[in-house]
């Protein structure tokens, strides 16, 4: 009972902090639309063309914007010691990581969901593609949150090179993208691809709390 209350409190804090930084969310979404416009202009508005690449653009922008928020993941709470205080109140680092991943998913990735229907409109995507997109997006962005968590915790240990975390996120998101975009190809087997994606998400959800927590503990030791 107390434990659930603690978790609830954790989310409440994240939510509040999120609303303090609502600007950066907006600027992420703005960046998103801006890039779409850029592509449309660069390509010239050939309708058929646009339709075929709309999905790809949305996905790659999603991936890039997750690397955007990498530093926000743990850095502040780690530097001012909040992570330790929370841990000392009985929440293991693994759980903290898990909660952080969830709140990153909820407060950073999901707001993107809102922009997808609008973006799809811009590209005249057929309705079933939009459904697919939203569906794969939910799973894919969960995977991305896990990846971000791992890279962000890795960055805590390394005080010199911040892009390496982003690079690793990008590298591992290659297969995610291939599968997610592949789902909308005409001749692809929707169900098995979705299953692969869900499988990946579960694996990452299983691995990343342990990996991230290990990095965080090590980083605390070297702090």
């Amino acid at each position, binding site marked *: 009972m107390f434990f659930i209350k603690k978790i609830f409190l954790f989310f409440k804090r994240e939510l509040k902090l999120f609303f303090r930084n609502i600007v950066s969310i907006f600027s992420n979404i703005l960046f998103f639309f801006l890039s779409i416009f850029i592509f449309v202009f660069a390509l010239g508005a050939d309708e058929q063309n646009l339709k075929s690449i709309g999905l790809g653009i949305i996905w790659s922008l999603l991936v890039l914007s997750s690397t955007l928020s990498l530093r926000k993941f743990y850095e502040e709470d780690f530097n001012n010691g909040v992570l330790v205080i929370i841990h000392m109140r009985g929440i293991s680092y693994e759980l903290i990581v898990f909660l952080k991943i969830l709140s990153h998913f909820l407060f950073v990735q999901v707001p993107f969901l809102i922009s997808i229907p609008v973006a799809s409109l811009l590209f005249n995507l057929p309705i079933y593609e939009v459904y697919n997109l939203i569906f794969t997006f939910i799973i894919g962005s969960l995977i991305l949150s896990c990846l971000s968590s791992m890279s962000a915790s890795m960055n805590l*240990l390394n005080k010199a090179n911040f892009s390496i975390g982003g690079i690793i996120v990008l*590298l591992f998101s290659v297969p995610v993208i291939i599968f997610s975009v592949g789902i909308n190809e005409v001749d692809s087997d929707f169900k098995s691809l979705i299953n692969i994606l869900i499988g990946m998400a579960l694996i990452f959800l299983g691995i990343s709390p342990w990996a991230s927590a290990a990095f965080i503990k090590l980083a605390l030791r070297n702090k």
Partner: protein
Amino acid sequence: MFGFLINPSKFNKFADIILKPLILLCSVILIAGLILVYLSPLDYQQGLTVKIMYIHVPSAWLALLTYSIMTIYSVIGIAFKMPFSFIVNKAVAPIGAVFTLICLISGSLWGKPIWGTWWVWDARLTSVAILLLIYLIIIFLDKTFENKEVREKTTAIFILIGSVNLPIIKFSVDWWNTLHQPASVSKLSSPSIDISMLQPLLVMTIAFSLIGLIIAILRIKAEILIRKNR
């Protein structure tokens, strides 16, 4: 007997014995290979450009081989906590990166006259480009962490995960239809390539491997020394 493959001091002894003969052998084979390449026939379609093959194919094979070696050593390093394997990984990664780079550049140079473009986004080429990125990330990872233990473990795990890319490179020509040549030399059954081209190719491959091996030995020795003095 094969202790030198996992034990630093044994490796040092073995390397001291073998290094000089190896250098000699390597120079002989390299010169022989270059002569054979010079004498090899021109392709009736491709003309002189076919000689790029004698750089391209060996470096491609060695890029793959180097990564495979790193994968094996990473497994050993993680499973048996063998520090020597991390030394090898660190020493060998830049060599593999260079081979990959040579493969990419020579392939590009070859592609321009043959395919009419420097670059196409097909499965073979892309997966090799990703191999280069993976090599670079491995090198960078080694320079980002201050903590030695973390550095070695993370790198090893990363190498393992990255090894997924190897079969993709190897079988990309079979799985997807691409512009790139399917395996003709390295087919298990019978190589479908003229003997006059096969000979210099094999000799050049051996020469390339020996060059890689010599550099690797030197780098490993240096790394062992650095660690001893710390």
